[in-house]
């Protein structure tokens, strides 16, 4: 049985696992954005926090993913279900690109523009919402893109702790020494990553033109 025949025969399961995979990576990226973007904003406001926050996110990034899943396994509530645990771990990995890009995006706004805004009497909040965030949005979306692609790739490993997703096929194929089954997981996962990269890349370029309108 070749790869395509395997996909056709199991299309139901391929679809289910793909949807599961999208949910894992999507919720994790959303969570990472909900925490990472505010943290990135915070460290532009309180510079002395920037080193510890970025350092912390960096350290998380260096933990091997399988080890991180293992660490979180005994955690109450979170460890009870593979899906929850995988989402938390993936979100932790997504933090660094989001914090870093939000920080870099805001720091990269032309200081003369920011000063003009301040001199016109914009409050800190108005300056952030009307000037800094819109002008940083291209760089922030680039961070979302990195986090999303990272999550989609790492989510394949989440099958090791019973979180489901396309990793199921990969691990099953490895156990069965069957390349068709491995590819049934690997190819859709790679396509998902490429699709996310392409779609977010387009959004990023669109927002990036805001800044070049100088």
């Amino acid at each position, binding site marked *: 049985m070749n790869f395509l025949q395997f996909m056709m025969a199991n299309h139901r399961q391929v679809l289910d696992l793909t949807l599961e995979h999208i949910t894992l990576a999507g919720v994790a990226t959303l969570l990472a954005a909900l925490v990472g973007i505010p943290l990135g904003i915070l460290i532009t406001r309180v510079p002395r926090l920037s080193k510890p926050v970025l350092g912390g996110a960096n350290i998380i990034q260096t933990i091997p993913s399988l080890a991180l899943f293992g660490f979180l396994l005994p955690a109450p509530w979170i460890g009870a279900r593979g899906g929850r645990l995988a989402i938390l771990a993936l979100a932790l990995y997504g933090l660094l690109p989001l914090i870093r890009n939000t920080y870099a995006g805001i720091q990269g706004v032309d200081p*003369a*523009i920011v000063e003009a805004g*301040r*001199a*016109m*009497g914009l409050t800190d909040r108005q300056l952030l919402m009307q000037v800094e965030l819109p002008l940083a949005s291209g760089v922030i979306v680039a961070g979302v893109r990195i986090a999303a692609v990272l999550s989609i790739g790492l989510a394949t490993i989440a099958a090791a702790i019973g979180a489901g997703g396309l990793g199921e096929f990969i691990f099953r194929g490895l156990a069965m020494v069957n390349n068709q089954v491995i590819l049934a997981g690997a190819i859709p996962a790679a396509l998902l990553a490429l699709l996310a990269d392409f779609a977010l890349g387009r959004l990023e370029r669109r927002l990036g033109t*805001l800044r*070049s309108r*100088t």
Partner: protein
Amino acid sequence: MTAPSNPERINNGPAIEFDRASFRLNGRPLLNDLVLSVKRGETLVLLGRSGSGKTTTLKLINRLLLPTSGEVRVNGQRTADWDPIRLRRSIGYVIQDGGLFPHFTVERNIALVPQIENWPRARIESRVRELLATVGLSEDLLSRYPSQLSGGQRQRVGVARALAADPPILILDEAFGALDPITRSEMQKEFRALQQRMKKTVIFVTHDLREALLLADRIALMEDGRLVVNLVSAEFSRSGDPLVRAYLEAFSGLPDPKQS
């Protein structure tokens, strides 16, 4: 905000006063014991080379900086006692190349201060159109972005934006510095005409002596964070001060701007 003790002085006193104001950054003095006052409706030009303390002086007025010693008073009240947001919204600020927000259209750029001051929509719209006419721009430009304008147009929008909420004080930092000589000369003349009509208190920073002589009621020459001379524009060329002489010398190859 503390209420000023003497309202009489508020109404008739100088618009801006520097009272032995100094500013140091990391121990390095950028401005030393500046004593200077600007009358209401007067145009004061701060002249000097780069690093002489002109921009620092401007930033002390709208409280982008606070003096490290001495004080700066706007309308008789110390800038330290002003609510910075209120203070800044009562002072129009124009910088080189306009300092426009690149992601806002011309209309939104000009309307920004009225908008955050919660003016009604209709009033903002009519004000924006009025200002465009004031600075000599066509209404076709309203929906353009700053990158779609020429340098001169951007600068005009910058002036319109600063005037939007009708602030009594206007400060300009090398406002026309990025323009080509012809546009620059046009802008200078138009600005002078505008100023004679509006009678705002204007502080204009430049390193260009001709621009200073053309626009100023009074010229304050600065060097190394100190005020060197503070003279009525007509007396400036007659001053014997060596630094003034050096300035006149540097520009002496050029025709007298008063005759242009």
